[in-house]
């Protein structure tokens, strides 16, 4: 920003460029928020209902020692919360990013204004953060309604899930701007998201995985998010959790730095 004010920015002054880019997305979102809210509510209700109660009643009957002695719903709900934050992060950072240069050309329009590619990127990323935060909030409410959290610490599961969502959104958006074709996204969802969802201690504890697979799962971001959300929801709070958060923050920072570069390279040709 220092370089900008030195060059004497627009006579009109006005809010920071990143905020200006973010506000554009708010205008767009105002048009569709109703339908998007409904799907954000329906998703968790279905998931927690079917898996938590349906599958849960089966699991609970066979003993929950491996789950740490809590009912399956209490074990599962915070993990699904983390997973849904990841899904929102991926949804918002793939097609909407490519679409903004290819289909509705929001970026191309914005580019002709004072906004620079890094502003356009960070503004969009702020909007992704807002979408993730909204969805996670709704999830938290549904989770409480189902009686899943075991502790008031669950309020910290919320920021943990937002961190996780952004740990996906920032680097994926930085990459999505570089792809030529939306087919690439199918790989992210099929070979990235689904295995992560299945093997990150989401539906069953990591200890159930074969020994050699456990470090692999632990190296991937979803497991850190699941661990954080679950610890807070169950009230198993310890100082060690800070490392999980740090891991996610590193991903967000790296993605944000990379995005400023990749957006500039793609938009300034």
């Amino acid at each position, binding site marked *: 920003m220092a*370089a*900008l004010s030195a*060059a*004497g*920015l*627009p*006579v*009109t*002054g*006005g*809010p920071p*460029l990143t905020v*200006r*880019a973010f*506000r*554009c997305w708010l*205008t*767009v979102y105002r*048009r569709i928020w109703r339908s998007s809210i409904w799907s954000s509510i329906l998703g968790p209700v279905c998931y927690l209902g079917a898996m938590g109660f349906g599958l849960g009643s089966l699991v609970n009957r066979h003993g929950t020692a491996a789950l740490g002695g809590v009912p399956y719903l209490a074990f599962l709900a915070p993990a699904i919360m983390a997973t849904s934050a990841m899904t929102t992060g991926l949804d918002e950072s793939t097609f909407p990013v490519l679409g903004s240069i290819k289909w*509705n*050309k*929001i970026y*191309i*329009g*914005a*580019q*002709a*204004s*004072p*906004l*620079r590619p890094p502003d356009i990127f960070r503004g969009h990323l702020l909007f992704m953060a807002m979408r993730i935060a909204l969805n996670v909030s709704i999830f938290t409410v549904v989770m409480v309604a189902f009686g899943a959290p075991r502790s008031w610490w669950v309020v910290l599961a919320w920021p943990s899930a937002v961190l996780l969502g952004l740990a996906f959104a920032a680097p994926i958006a930085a990459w999505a701007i570089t792809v030529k074709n939306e087919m690439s996204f199918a790989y992210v969802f099929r070979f990235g998201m689904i295995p992560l969802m299945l093997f990150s201690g989401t539906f069953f504890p990591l200890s159930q995985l074969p020994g050699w697979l456990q470090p692999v799962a632990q190296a991937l971001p979803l497991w850190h998010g699941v661990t954080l959300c679950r610890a807070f929801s169950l009230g198993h709070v310890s100082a060690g959790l800070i490392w999980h958060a740090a891991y996610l923050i590193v991903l967000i920072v790296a993605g944000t730095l990379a995005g400023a570069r990749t957006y500039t390279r793609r*938009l*300034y*040709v």
Partner: protein
Amino acid sequence: MKTVAFLSYPRGMVPQVSENEVLVRARGLIKRFGGFTAVNGIDFELYRGEAFGFLGPNGAGKSSTMRMIGCVSPPSGGELSILGMNPVRDGSAIRARLGVVPQEDTLDVELTVRENLLVYGRYFGLPRKLIRDRTTELLEFVQLEDRAGDKVEPLSGGMKRRLTIARSLINDPDILILDEPTTGLDPQARHVVWDRLFRLKQRGVTLILTTHYMDEAEQLCDRLVVMDKGVFAAEGSPRQLIAEYCSPEVVELRFDPALHDAATEKIKDVQAERHEVLADRILLYVPDGERAIEEVRARGLEPLTTLIRRGTLEDVFLYLTGRRLED
């Protein structure tokens, strides 16, 4: 400053082209994409209040030049200064004072006409109230005031173009950049757009435009350059270019196809600035068309049709860029 300044100039009180005030200056400007050189060392100056045109076939380097002036494409070489600033270092500050009408519309078709202007005005950091006032004025100017609350999607191509023009004026720009403003529009829609652009020009807005329509260039541009293969093939006012590269009159002769070649041979020595033989016609560039036709007939040739017309910018363009087929 409540309104768009140029829209409120009373007629006749328009600032004239001022050669003292250079808004854009390029020296040896180059743009390369990998091994391909799109713009190969061009020099020009744009003065406040003029309408400056880049004419040329597709691939001549017009759009690359526009993108460099629009500060969204860093030059590969040479010098470029816009509003006295450096496009690479001060891109954001320069763009705050430019209006851009890109070749392809970048409107958000799911928002309303008014919302499109709102989103855009907010990019420039303008307060809502000011945007509202300008929107009313600009929509009236581009004759879209009845559609203000409608979604953009169902609007016709011409209406979308006009909306893009209105949007590009939301920040009351010093320079309006138009990249092929009427490509793809039907003739009626083109005339409406020209009419609006002509009014802007009358009101003293500085325009830079690219086009491959000669009539567009002739109507709108005070000064233009013919660009071909990344360099300027010629520059001047439309009238100067016609005087320099064309003759006052052009005679078009059409012969029976069987006699075409023989006729070409026979009229070789008819006095003309230039002969041009096309597949179906022979063109003679002459000062006096009637006399040239008499000379042709004096050689015992009887064309199927003859046409005498004034030399146009199109003749200049085709002469300078060649009649090759490309796009």
